[in-house]
Structure formats: structure tokens, C-alpha cells
């Protein structure tokens, strides 16, 4: 079966990933996270920047397993994160409420030497203060191996 003969992936581009509740970076959790890095929490109340990933993933409108499910993919089959990009407008702060908005950008199917067939899932998430002030935008690309289509 050539790439053009593969069945198309689910049409999920544009699907909203916006969260419904506020995400707060707890100062205690930030402290615990820094301890795993043998790092000292910032004295000014700023959170470790890796919270760009955590806050958006936890605060988006579905879990990673649910995100996989809408792509007709079982999370037990091993999704693999391929890349992340983030652009900050302002630092992340502990004890600050954030809202997450975002959407799936694309789900494309292609042949892979390693997995036979795989889907590439791209989605974008934005973090903002409760008044809408932008804080950051991030995009992630995940590879979803479709071994049964190989």
C-alpha cells in the first residue's frame, strides 16, 4: 500500500483544546518540582519555566489519553513526543491563575521506516491571565505509530 493508498487519519484539525477551568501553579508544587532538579525556587515568585509544558498540558480541555482517543489512537500504543516550541510573553508566576486555549493544527499520515505508518499530530496551546493578557504560546508535535496499517 503506497502512502496515497493509506486510509486517511481522522479529520481533527481545528478541534478545540481549550480548558474550562483555571490552572494555578502552586508554590508548593513548584518547590517540589525544583527539588527534583536540585534547584532553588526563585525568590521572586516566578515558577520554573518548564511549567509552560505542565500548565498547558494539565489545563487544556482533555487529557493526553483523550487527545489520543479523538485521533483514533490508543494511548497504550505509545504516543511519542517529537518536538516542542514555546514563546513567552511574560514569566510564569506561582499562585497565579491561568487559562488555556488551543486547538489541533493538523493530523497527517505518512510512512515511517521505523514504524511502518505513523500519524504526526500538531497542536497549539496558549496560556493567558484571567483577564486575557497573553503569557505564552506553545506547540507540540506527537508521533502516533500506526503499526496495524503497515
Amino acid at each position, binding site marked *: 500500500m503506497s502512502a496515497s493508498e493509506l486510509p486517511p487519519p481522522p479529520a481533527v484539525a481545528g478541534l478545540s483544546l481549550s480548558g474550562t477551568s483555571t490552572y494555578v501553579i502552586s508554590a508548593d508544587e513548584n518547590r517540589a518540582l525544583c527539588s*527534583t532538579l536540585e*534547584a532553588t525556587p526563585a525568590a521572586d515568585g516566578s515558577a520554573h*519555566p518548564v511549567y509552560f509544558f505542565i500548565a498547558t498540558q494539565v489545563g487544556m480541555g482533555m487529557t*493526553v489519553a483523550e487527545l489520543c482517543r479523538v485521533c483514533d489512537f490508543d494511548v497504550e500504543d*505509545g504516543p511519542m513526543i*517529537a518536538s516542542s*516550541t514555546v514563546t513567552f510573553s511574560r514569566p510564569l508566576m506561582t499562585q497565579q491563575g491561568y487559562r488555556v486555549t488551543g486547538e489541533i493544527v493538523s493530523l497527517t499520515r505518512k510512512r515511517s521506516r521505523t514504524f511502518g505508518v505513523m500519524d504526526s499530530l500538531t497542536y497549539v496551546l496558549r496560556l493567558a491571565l484571567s483577564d486575557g493578557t497573553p503569557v505564552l504560546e506553545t506547540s507540540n508535535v506527537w508521533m502516533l505509530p500506526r503499526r496495524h496499517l503497515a
Partner: protein
Amino acid sequence: MTAVDVPVMANGVPVTVGASLPPYTLAAVRPENMKLWAGFLRDPNPIHLDAQAVRAKGLGNKVINQGPANLAYLITMLQRAFPRAVLETLEVRYGGMVYGGDAVEATGTVRELSLGVCASRVICDVSLRADGRDGVIWGVAVLSLGHPTAAETRSAGSILG
């Protein structure tokens, strides 16, 4: 024309193109920390918690560290090199796994430096290796550096003389 002073890293080394950032190392990634990260990420995936689950999936014999934790090592390396800097952008690719017990080393090199009177910007190539395996994560970070203090300026001199 106003002279612009070259910024320095936390270890006192001037920020110049090609300069190496002080590496960040952990002697061993602790499996108990993966349990904490599972909570941070609200991610109950057993490959981070149970070596038997890793074996069952044919992925090895040790628990696998969460990707964002690996990313955090890189970011912490940048924070330590540039304590007063603000991370503006980060682009990374994930190419490998880190297992429980692995020693990790995050490194960086200055790719570009643009000096300004009020602030400077530095672009760094960054990478993470685990137990000597390159390519766990690699990418590019852009940081805005704060205006150097007088003490830093004295220690580093001025590249514009």
C-alpha cells in the same frame, strides 16, 4: 555611540559566540522523582512508575523519565548560566529516552549574541545526554539578558573598547 558592555555568565565567563555554558548534571535520575512528576503532569502512564510495565512494552528494563522532566534539565542549565535572564523562546526536538539511574548532562553553546544598551539577547544551542547517549533532546533557546551590573561590567570589560 554608547559603548555596550559584554554580559557574563554566572561563572564569570563573558558571553561570546562559541562560548560553552556551564553544564548541568545529575549523577542519577531518581525513580522516586518520576512519581512526583507523574503528579505534576497528572500523567499516570506506568512506564514512568513501574519497570515491569516498561519490560512488558519492550522498552527496556528501567522506568522511563518523563520528557518534560528532561526538558527541565535543559532549562535549569540555562537558568544557572544566566540567572537574571528571561527565557523568550525555546525550540526542542526529543530523540531519546532517559531511564531511572541514568546520569544526565545538559549542555549549551552560544550561537549568537546581540548586544543592546538596555538589554542583550543570546541564542544558544542546547542538548541533553543521558549515560553518554547524545541526542536525548536538542534545540535552540533565546534569552533576553538583563543589563549587566557594574561589577559584571568591570569583570568582563567591553567588547567595543
